[in-house]
């Protein structure tokens, strides 16, 4: 395969070991603009590890990453962000004692003459959340005082307020109320319509089936399934996750 320019993102032959655990073995994964890809698998299957490699948190032991056909090396999350890859990690990655604007602008604060523009950041944070249909009254309160759903909103708001090309969401709906889950799913559809590639990790297969275009299944660090959502159902996915089946389409 000499050219890899047909995909927005392509990961090839990704391997990652943690001590004695082979978290990922020879995993291929790709994303196209405007598609929502579900990434599923049992606990410990390697989902978070795979997306952490794509977001620059971990270096792979082996394997290559291409972005718009170009080979890239992510030394840190900064490098991935620079290409427009934004991630909402499973643990949300918020600083508990920081307020909402400080979290939303963490790492890309607005400054003038080297000094933070607190008012401007507060204004923009409010605007960004409003565009998302997320209303947070206590913008200046430490985020640890917010509800789980509101914290999730902040984490998501941060990820998508940068006009990203890729948005990765690692279990964004866990511990959310039904209404909030629908908001997250709705948001993913909107991102898709804007041409953003979305990775959606969830244990609730109904959600995954409802919103994704394609589903990738990991089992014990190995990719055992990669199929259009239209050809998938819960039974098949579960079988792939825990059983012995293997389905791979396209490439």
């Amino acid at each position, binding site marked *: 395969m000499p050219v890899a320019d047909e995909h927005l993102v392509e990961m090839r032959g990704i391997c990652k070991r943690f001590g004695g655990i082979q978290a990922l073995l020879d995993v291929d994964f790709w994303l196209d603009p405007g598609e929502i890809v579900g990434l599923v698998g049992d606990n410990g299957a390697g989902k978070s590890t795979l997306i952490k490699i794509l977001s620059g948190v971990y270096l792979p032991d082996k394997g290559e990453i291409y972005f718009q056909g170009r080979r890239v090396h992510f030394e840190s999350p*900064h490098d991935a962000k620079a290409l427009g890859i934004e991630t909402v*990690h499973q643990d949300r990655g*918020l*600083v508990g*004692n920081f307020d909402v604007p400080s979290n939303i602008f*963490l*790492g*890309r604060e607005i400054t003038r003459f080297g*000094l*933070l523009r607190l008012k401007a950041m507060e204004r923009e944070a409010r605007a960004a959340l409003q565009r998302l249909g997320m209303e947070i009254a206590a913008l200046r309160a430490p985020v640890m005082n917010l509800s789980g759903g509101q914290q999730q909103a902040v984490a998501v708001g941060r990820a998508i307020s940068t006009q990203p090309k890729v948005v990765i969401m690692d279990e964004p709906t866990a511990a959310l109320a039904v209404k909030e889950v629908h908001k997250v799913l709705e948001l993913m559809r909107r991102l898709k319509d804007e041409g953003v590639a979305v990775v959606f990790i969830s244990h609730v297969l109904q959600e995954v089936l409802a919103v994704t275009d394609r589903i990738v299944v990991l089992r014990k660090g190995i990719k055992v399934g990669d199929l259009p959502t239209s050809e998938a159902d819960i039974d098949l996915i579960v079988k792939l996750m825990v059983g012995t089946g293997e389905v791979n389409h396209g490439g």
Partner: protein
Amino acid sequence: MNRDLWKHFIRRYGTVIGGVLIFIGFAVTTPYFFTFHNFLLILKQMSLLTIVSLGFTFVMAAGGFDMSIGFAMGLANVFLASVLNATGSLALAVLTALGTGLVVGALNGLLVAFLRLPDFIATFAVGSVTYGAKMLYSGGYPVFLVSPPRSFFTIGQGTVGPVPVPVFIMLGILIVSLVVLNRTKLGRHIYAIGGNPMAALYAGINVRRKRFYTFLISGLSVGITAIVLTSRLGSGQPEAGENFLLDVISVCFLSTTMFGEGEPTGAGAFVGAFIITMLNNGLTMLNVPYHVQYITKGMVVIFAVMLSVLLGQKVRIKFL
């Protein structure tokens, strides 16, 4: 006020109120404590402690600890005095002191931030190396200044009107620290690293480099302090500054309990240094033996931290 509001109020301002009470106590029990002259004296006495505590605040805000400060100061003292004797150049001597602090800070930062040694162990070991180096170099004896430029003594002993020069240096560094900690990206990132290092990493912050910077800043504050200290003493004292570590830690613990933030702040370092220095000053006036003062200071810190923990404040100090 209902109970929760009270709790909140005490949590936020308990340490400050305690400081005011101690102040009133000294003012009532000793005749000379509550005078303008003594106020200036306390400001002068606290100036060095404040500067080092501000440096330490950067390290602690990023979730770290620096055990090397006291020994590093002695090394900077003797190097500064030797260079001043050898060259007669004030600028060179000052650069030497700052450079010594920075080198020790860089060593700490290298070990902790880049080689990922635990900060207690690494900075303790660097402190030990520093101690050995300064003792080897000086033989444990002070380096007396032979014919220093007169201007050198202005730094530690001069006054502007009634106000000692070190007080101005302290206030200058306080202002710079407050601005950097509260109003710049660097300060914001340092607090983020202390609050949740993974979140800082995810946000694209160069965690290692910024932790490294905090140790550099701490080292720089030690170098600055060594200049003022040596100027005040008129000689490079290898052991001067060793007892700073205890006081600096006390100040930063107090700072952490202050204003209900649960993290050390620049303002907290200033108020904390004032409280600790005021205790020394007042207890001396009451003729309390010097070593009893350490016991008293320790108890004050324990009380302040205990109060905030009891009131539900999350105090982010590693070994609590």
